[in-house]
């Protein structure tokens, strides 16, 4: 990292200073670094290297925790030295926050593409041109797979299951190109560790590795494994809608839209063929499907027809067309003021229901990033609990349910840094809430039918509305 600092300034030095140019010449060699125009010999070496190691999409993968330790590495071709991650650490240091580390970092010989999830950086090393989203989307799929396999995706869990992780990664990618990324297929190739299986394996000496090619890989339905059997056949669908909104100071809506998903948990025996139809499919403006959904059928009849994968999956995500006015189910009354003269500020917010279609609003939490000048806050809530972190300046108030008769409020004072001028911006309030049994867009599932199997499944549909990115500017 220290070396890196110097590196950035190399080209600044003028040509006349012999002492400096000597240093400069050495640097590219010791670090394999930039400045190709200076070092001709270096250029040719690079070219020959290129013709030899023709690319593969993803060369290597490094898992880096938040404290900057590489705790897992996997190479799909020749080993790439760990030191390539130094460039990443450099960028990480520059970014101060993990959120701001650029997803694509160029280094002289490689490109580092990373995703940050569960406090782990998944850094893929690639060597040549590749669509960056290809790599990023794949890395996300890797994380999803780990989550699916181990329940949580965290450093200790990955370390504990390093063999399974390795086996899974081996199957997911061949020569840097994705091979099997469908969770259903992977689980047939490598069985996820369960306590029972671990015990059984120890006793019988059997393994986690499947010895047969998953039939799905070859059949028409590559996302579903064959031979699924359940005693209770169930299919549950959750219609979850999120409201993304920005509400301005005066309470009027600047922008609001509804994004929805239908998450399914299908545990059905055999090869069921399901159709799901809506009462008002026209609401759906833009949709994206799980690969199992038959696109043509949707185009012509607006019916979702599909052979579901086994287990949990996201059937559909949709966007409700912008023409429909979005009903905003809550309002926030706020009075936050700083006075120039005093070192105290007033803080008061009230949350109330609005257009809820008679449903109660639950799980309300209010968070707000207070300005740096705020030292502490002394507040009293009418219900729920609140915390203020004087270091991060994050105020959060766990409200719970909103009772329309007695609106929850949070009142009190803020103490400001003495002598500091008043902050010129009032904090933005972020809101979270849930409304059960309501899809705010009015979307309704008409019916769910099953073909292809003889039994009668248990079907269930649940609606829920949540706050997505719901912000109130004050």
């Amino acid at each position, binding site marked *: 990292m220290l070396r890196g600092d110097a590196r950035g300034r190399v080209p600044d030095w003028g040509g006349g200073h012999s002492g400096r140019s000597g240093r400069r010449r050495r640097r590219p060699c010791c670090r394999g670094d930039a400045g190709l125009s200076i070092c001709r010999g270096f250029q040719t070496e690079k070219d020959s290297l*290129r013709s030899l190691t023709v*690319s593969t*999409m993803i060369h290597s993968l490094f898992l880096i925790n938040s404290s900057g330790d590489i*705790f897992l*590495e996997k190479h799909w*071709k*020749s*080993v790439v030295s760990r030191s390539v991650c130094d460039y990443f650490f450099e960028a990480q240091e520059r970014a101060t926050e993990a*959120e*701001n580390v*650029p*997803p*694509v970092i160029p280094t002289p010989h490689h*490109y580092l593409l990373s*995703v940050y*999830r569960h406090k782990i950086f998944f850094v893929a090393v690639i060597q*040549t*041109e590749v*669509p*960056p989203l290809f790599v*990023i*989307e794949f890395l*996300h799929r890797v994380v999803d797979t780990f989550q699916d396999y181990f329940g949580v995706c965290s450093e200790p869990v990955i370390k504990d*299951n*390093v*063999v399974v992780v*390795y086996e899974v990664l*081996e199957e997911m990618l*061949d*020569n840097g*190109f994705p091979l099997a*990324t469908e969770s259903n297929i992977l689980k047939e190739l490598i069985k996820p560790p369960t306590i029972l299986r671990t015990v059984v394996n120890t006793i019988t*000496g059997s393994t986690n*590795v499947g010895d047969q*090619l998953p039939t799905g*890989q*070859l059949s028409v339905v590559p996302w579903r494994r064959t031979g699924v059997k359940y005693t209770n056949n169930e299919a549950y669908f959750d219609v979850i809608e999120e409201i993304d909104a*920005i509400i301005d100071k005066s309470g009027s809506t*600047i*922008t609001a*839209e509804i994004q929805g998903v239908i998450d399914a948990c299908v545990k059905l025996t055999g*090869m069921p*063929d399901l159709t799901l139809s809506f009462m008002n499919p026209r609401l759906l403006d833009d*949709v994206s*499907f*799980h690969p199992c959904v038959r*696109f*043509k*059928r949707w*185009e012509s009849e607006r019916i979702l027809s599909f*052979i579901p994968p086994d287990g949990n999956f996201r059937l559909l995500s949709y966007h409700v067309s912008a023409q429909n006015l979005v009903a905003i189910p809550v309002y926030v009354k706020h009075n936050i003021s700083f006075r120039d003269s005093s070192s105290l500020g007033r803080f008061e917010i009230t949350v109330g229901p609005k257009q809820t279609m008679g449903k109660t609003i639950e799980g309300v939490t209010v968070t707000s990033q207070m*300005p*740096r000048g705020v030292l502490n806050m002394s507040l009293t809530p009418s219900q729920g609990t609140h915390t203020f972190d004087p270091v991060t300046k994050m105020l959060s108030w766990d409200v719970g349910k909103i009772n329309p008769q007695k609106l929850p409020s949070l009142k009190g004072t803020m103490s400001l840094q003495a002598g500091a001028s008043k902050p*010129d*911006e009032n904090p*933005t309030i972020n809101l979270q809430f849930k409304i059960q049994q309501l899809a705010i867009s009015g979307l309704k599932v008409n019916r769910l039918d099953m*073909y*292809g199997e003889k039994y009668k499944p248990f079907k269930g549909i649940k609606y829920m509305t949540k706050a997505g*990115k719901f*912000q109130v500017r004050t």
Partner: protein
Amino acid sequence: MSSNSFAYNEQSGGGEATELGQEATSTISPSGAFGLFSSDMKKNEDLKQMLESNKDSAKLDAMKRIVGMIAKGKNASELFPAVVKNVASKNIEIKKLVYVYLVRYAEEQQDLALLSISTFQRALKDPNQLIRASALRVLSSIRVPIIVPIMMLAIKEASADLSPYVRKNAAHAIQKLYSLDPEQKEMLIEIIEKLLKDKSTLVAGSVVMAFEEVCPDRIDLIHKNYRKLCNLLVDVEEWGQVVIIHMLTRYARTQFVSPWRQGDVLEDNEKDFYDSDEEQKEKADKRKRPYAMDPDHRLLIRNTKPLLQSRNAAVVMAVAQLYWHIAPKSEAGIISKSLVRLLRSSREVQYIVLQNIATMSIQRKGMFEPYLKSFYVRSTDATMIKILKLEILTNLANEANISTLLREFQTYVKSQDKQFAAATIQTIGRCATSITEVSDTCLNGLVCLLSNRDEIVVAESVVVIKKLLQMQPMQHGEIIKHMAKLLDSITVPVARASILWLIGENCERVPKIAPDVLRKTAKSFTSEDDLVKLQILNLGAKLYLTNSKQTKLLTQYILNLGKYDQNYDIRDRTRFIRQLIVPNEKSGALSKYAKKIFLAQKPAPLLESPFKDRDHFQLGTLSHTLNTKATGYLELSNWPEVAPDPSVRNVEVIELAKEWTPAGKAKKENPDKKFYSESEEEEDSSESSSDSESESGSESGEDEEDDRSGDSAEDSGESGSEPEAGKGRAATRSRARGRGDSKDVDKEKENSKTSESSSGESSSIEESSSDSESESESESESESRKVTKEKEKKTKQERNPLTKDVSLLDLDDFNLVSTPVALPTPALSPSLIADLEGLNLSATSSVISVSTPVFVPGKTHVLLHRMSGKGLAAHYFFPRQPCIFGDKMVSVQITLNNTTDQKIENIHVGGKKLPMGMQMHVFNPIESLEPAGSITVSMGIDFCDSTQTASFQLCTKDDCFSVNIQPPVGELLLPVAMSEKDFKKEQGMLSGMNETSTTIIAAPQNFASSVILQKIVNVANVGVVPSGQDNIHRYEELKFQAL
């Protein structure tokens, strides 16, 4: 380190308690560096022992720990000899872990790695396709140059494997071998060429990937596979889709002419897109405008559209860039909605997508204007996302929305994220320059910001105001005065420098303030930043030239300070200025022009988007993201002025067949003839009479059939109900339907018989087509094209008479299902014919060539009895033709009879009750059936290799009847043509899996080969393998599901 070993222990899960016990004590107890080192050594010894033990569990434990070491990046190479011994382990998990180890270390231990090769070679012949595939994977991953020939051989064999999974792995292995030894390129290209013809969706993505890496410039290999790839695209797995779309984008840019013409946008309004393609075609024809899109170009654009709905962001982005780069500008609009949708996903995806939108929004504002609000910034966004959104908002700003945007910007300016606030100020500056109506408002707003409490905001405002003032050489004395006052409070160097520069430039406009400012800064000169010092020097020089009376001394004082400054840049500048402005005997003529030099009119800086120059990179690529050319970036070529010959995408199977048939017949048909004549004698001797006629008829019939099966293969992903412009079928053919109604089963038999007789031909067609390819490779392309065209003409002539008589009867089985397509206009017909020909490829070029049935039994089954059907009777039988609706379907022909004395109207298939996985392609509803009339229709049913019953309802206008079709096992098969040798090979691979053997006792008179054949083909749709021995008969079949 000790914690590491602890982790291993935990992870190995108490498999071998005793060993673990030792392990734990030995590793945890020692402390200090030396202790750790020794324990490490000891542990490796342990591992060796465990690997050499004869218990699988111990080996497995050892391997798991070794993999743990590899994952941690520790060196485990010294265990190589011990590990490599286990490569042949029976335990599949040990084997897998050994593979992992081998791939990691083989490069370092090449000699020892060779020990494992024979194991893989053996595994390559394993009956289990999973084992074959993984052996190939590991073998090709061992980067040891010595085994290149072995790898080559393995890849060659695997590329012809029956299992598409193995072929997929072969495609991956090509890239690995190429990177190991680029010398092999030519041979590898041959394999790629072969695999490109593969019909399996599993293979398509991988082979295109190999193509992109090995020979991206061999665009000629794509021509013949272009249509197939377009049609398969929807069914390819998502990662393959991305690669194929990117490749096809490049392809399209070299093969088609630009759809972006002047006036194109005006003519093609948005609505056009939503019209069906057919309509559009018609319109295009009516207009007779000079540009008509190549149907292949249209095919690509149409077939990628559904993928915008993919859940995979990479696929959506790939389609978006395809539309951006090759679709007519009027149609590119549909991608914006999908791209905006992607903004809901993770930070990283947002980052890339926003970058691409930023580039697009510069060129075509209109595309994203409706989604303006989607780019509003939230306080929770990461800074890089915020800045990208801001960039897009700026690009989208226009007179109509600027007031809304400016209000939004006001909020942003106050943001706690100061980097973002600063970016917003720059944005306001850009808006002010691009939209002149608001420039004054913006300037005033920025001036207000000068009194902001935050220094970064003020500094940025100063910089932006400076740029704005420079662009508008008007009187802004007030603002300058205001800024001069700010100099006392602002500490940010850039801002101070900017103010000083501004005052210097306008020193004649603020004659009172300027010298005062110089006086103040002279005092603080030594403590200023270098940037500010330079500007102080500049200001001094300018004032010296304009107002030397007041400032002469001050300037000299500053120059003196500068002379002894630590920074050599400042010393340089001081020396330069002194020489230039202070006249002395040494200074030459230049000092006369000093004023002109210093106070020249400076060009205003251009405030433009940092994304302005990115559009020369292909969107969605790494190079675009980085804004530099990444290694291996393939330039997107410009549209050609004149389109290269579109006929290269046609596959001239028919014409070439003509030319080659004599040879083919002589070689192949003789044994067949004999065989047929025998069986014919047995069954029906009258048939030979129509030999010559049916010969030619069957030929064309077969051609059509091939077309259709090609169609169906390509259609398999679609429901097939949509009219496809590219696949025009002459309406005359579908009209012939009516005549064919009266046709009885005998005739049916005859037709299929005759088509059988040309089975030898079909193989010769294949041969010739492959020949022609090699030909075109060696010869110059243009020449072969010429030949093609001539042939095309010939066949067209020959075709016409044929379609009139015999072939009509042959064809009509397929016609009812053919989608209603208007008679193609004459202008288009050549390309349509070309299309039909192009479609042939997929049927003939597959690795396994399906042959025509040897025999079609005429047995019909009752579907619906006339008594129970209220006068509607239905019979079905299996024509043993490759089904046109999908290659997994069995075609079923249903003959419907009206036995009532009234018309039966609207006969159609109602509700289907199919077992899981089973699929059915129904016939098109029949409007009416005259009394005593009959009609034959075709259906396709995918029985999923089972003999389960397909139940569905046959409905008329008034009634519904439940009916069932249950297939005999023999009808689920499909005959393939292969040599005896191949057959034996494939049989070897399948052994054990699908084997049943029984002994059949037969009477001696039944022991003639013809009798046995007759019996067998009667019950099962199989083909005959030419056999060298008399008493062994081989029949092949292709299970529908297995492939």
